[in-house]
């Protein structure tokens, strides 16, 4: 794997990471800004199902984030279709015990590089719940630009939130 970062590595998923994934994902603080479909409690079976989906890579490409030999998170890009096919949505989460170390920033930077160089995408964007400032900061540090604030686009925990779009566009075209 190409060395793109100092603090973490992106690696392909392996089924043997399921137990570690279940451990870091079974956390309401991690789930807080993810989709409702993200399970809670997060069981070993949920981890196995996710890794199976990641390995099939039918709707996008999925990597695990590793630091010092430990699983520290998950990151993926799902390309859009038709006239938007060169644009992909980036999504990620970091295990709580690794928050605050710049791992998300490094992982976003590495994933963006791979998405452009290896998968031929031109634009990457993240949809971030407005209260999730840590995620917005990680995107900014990774070179993403704020583009729009989508009023009341998200309904979660019985309330509406705005969703922010941050994007990175390949300048080599």
């Amino acid at each position, binding site marked *: 794997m190409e060395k793109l970062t100092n603090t973490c590595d992106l690696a392909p998923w392996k089924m043997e990471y399921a137990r570690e994934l279940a451990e870091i994902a079974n956390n309401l603080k991690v789930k807080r800004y993810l989709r409702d479909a993200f399970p809670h409690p997060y069981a070993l079976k949920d981890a196995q199902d996710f890794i199976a989906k990641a390995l099939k890579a039918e709707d996008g490409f999925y990597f695990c984030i590793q630091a010092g030999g430990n699983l520290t998170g998950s990151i993926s890009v799902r390309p859009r279709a038709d006239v938007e096919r060169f644009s992909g949505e980036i999504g990620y989460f970091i295990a709580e015990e690794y928050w605050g170390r710049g791992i998300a920033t490094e992982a976003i930077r590495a994933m963006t590089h791979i998405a452009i160089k290896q998968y031929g995408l031109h634009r990457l964007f993240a949809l971030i719940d407005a209260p999730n400032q840590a995620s917005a900061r990680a995107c900014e540090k990774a070179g993403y630009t704020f*583009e729009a604030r989508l009023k009341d686009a998200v*309904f979660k925990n019985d309330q509406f939130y705005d969703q922010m*779009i941050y994007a990175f566009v390949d300048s080599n075209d």
Partner: protein
Amino acid sequence: MPLSTPTIDLGDFCLRAWRMSDAEARARHGNHPKIIRYMFDSFGSPHTVEKAREFIEKSFAHDKSLRFCISVDEEAVGSLFLHVGEDVNRYSAEVGYWLGLEHWGKGIMTRALKTAVRVGFDNHGLRRIHATLDPENRRSAQVLKRAGFKLEGRLKHAVCRDGRFIDDLIYALVSTNRPDI
């Protein structure tokens, strides 16, 4: 939950469900460069009767989208859809539309959009309706503004057409901010 398509009579035109017999009229009105240039590639260039049939067939799907035929004297002259989002975006829908050129300038599209907004908010409990559009499509921007939509941002190089990257503008209307229409 599938949404059923109501028939709404607005005097000089109707919003109603698509019928297979609309295919020829749909192709006749939709197959124009001024319409095709802002559609998805899957719309087809040209938008043939065959393509029109595919779209009408799809409109019968039992999903969370609402797909209206805009009809004048029973003739299909345009299209308007609301695609409802999923998961945390389930109270949000994307609206899209087109109208045959010979019916431009009569306010049909603005009234159709206002009506769809009302149906989306009042009948389907939506909170937010948004549209993305080509920055050159000023006509459509006017329709959105007349219906109370606000510009939220510009998505850089979100669209690729004929090998060229272009931006998308995103406009939205939220039910708590709706104008009196």
